[in-house]
């Protein structure tokens, strides 16, 4: 699978002292329209994500973290590095994960029975899960992300993080393995939804690729 190959090359790259690079989108910029339009995708991927990559490379070149440190290690140890590493390694990791979490509505896969059962067991139903996830995203004041994670007790949990932090970071209030994350920075939705973050959060489900999320769940619980 293309997306799996991309993930492998990004997340498991050997520790060579090589610049981080912007991954290509796993679909065309207009593939997620009308939930996320092409202009938003082009700016979000080509400008915002690119800036995190560039600023991460600059921070490493400036000695903020040892050259050759993997993205995973930069994220996990975010609190031990400078804010520039925390913010830009987080920005690079989060956006890469975000692109891979979505697919054109017609191709977005189904939830596995295992994940569906776990969601129902924890949240009551898929609808209640969605409502709780949307509320957590709407309640994040300022910029940040809302996540579905597998926590330390192998339980599903919804959490949110400020700015470009994520649940893999040592600085995260609630830590765990992310299965799904939605970007609630205003740049993620402003051109289409303006101030209406809740509407964006509600429509976003149409393009979540549950096949991918279900695979992540299997890996997270060790199946």
């Amino acid at each position, binding site marked *: 699978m293309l997306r799996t190959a991309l993930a492998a090359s990004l997340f498991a790259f050997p520790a060579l002292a090589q610049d981080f690079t912007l991954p290509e989108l796993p679909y065309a910029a207009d593939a997620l329209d009308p939930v996320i339009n092409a202009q938003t995708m082009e700016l979000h991927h080509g400008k915002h994500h690119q800036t995190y990559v560039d600023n991460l490379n600059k921070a490493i070149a400036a000695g903020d973290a040892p050259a050759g440190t993997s993205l995973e290690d930069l994220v996990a140890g975010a609190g031990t590095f400078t804010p520039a590493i925390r913010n830009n390694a987080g920005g690079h990791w989060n956006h890469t994960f975000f692109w891979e979490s979505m697919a054109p509505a017609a191709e977005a896969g189904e939830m596995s029975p295992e994940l569906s059962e776990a969601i129902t067991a924890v949240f009551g139903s898929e609808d209640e899960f969605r409502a709780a996830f949307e509320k957590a995203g709407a309640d994040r004041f300022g910029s940040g992300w809302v996540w579905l994670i597998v926590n330390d007790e192998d339980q599903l949990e919804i959490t949110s993080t400020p700015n470009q932090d994520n649940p893999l970071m040592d600085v995260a209030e609630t830590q765990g393995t992310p299965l799904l994350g939605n970007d609630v920075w205003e740049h993620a939705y402003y051109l289409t939804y303006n*101030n209406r973050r809740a509407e964006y959060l509600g429509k976003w489900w149409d393009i979540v690729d549950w096949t991918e999320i279900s695979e992540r769940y299997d890996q997270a619980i060790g199946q």
Partner: protein
Amino acid sequence: MAFTLPDLPYSHDALADLGMSRETLEFHHDIHHKAYVDNGNKLIAGTEWENKSLEEIVKGTYQPGAVAQNGIFNNASQHWNHNLFWEVMGPGEKKIPGALESALTESFGSVDKFKEEFAAAGAGQFGSGWAWLVKDASGALKVTKTENGVNPLCFDQTALLGVDVWEHSYYIDFRNKRPAYLTNFLDKLVNWEAVAAKL
């Protein structure tokens, strides 16, 4: 006392030729600022803050060192911040009054140095927030930056100038280019008479 949304001190298209469009002001003032007012009023109703002044609420609900501020603080402070923001912009004269120019030169070396420092603070505020020109208790002028809704009242400073760097402030007119928005703000939008009046 209940918060009310102030009218803009100029028309919605008064700043359009200066880099802040009617569309931005319609969303930013009529929708975003109004939401802070409405949410703030809902949250203070029936609480100890209901009959307090806006300044008292901001100072009294700020939690130093908290990972995230509470809802009353966030909405009250953003109401205060936006009140100031509308006031320090304008379509008129862009000359810096002599007393303010002297104070900026004394504190920063020159007006240009002040502008550089202020723009750098705004660009360097990662995520949502504000950049400020403040006067501290000793009377010294300083440039600061704050996250989300946090403002100079929290630190017993007098705010002379503030710029909103939440993306909603500039996304319609400048997209991702926050530094261009900040330069434009300083060069074209600031009403320096209003800033000088706070000295």
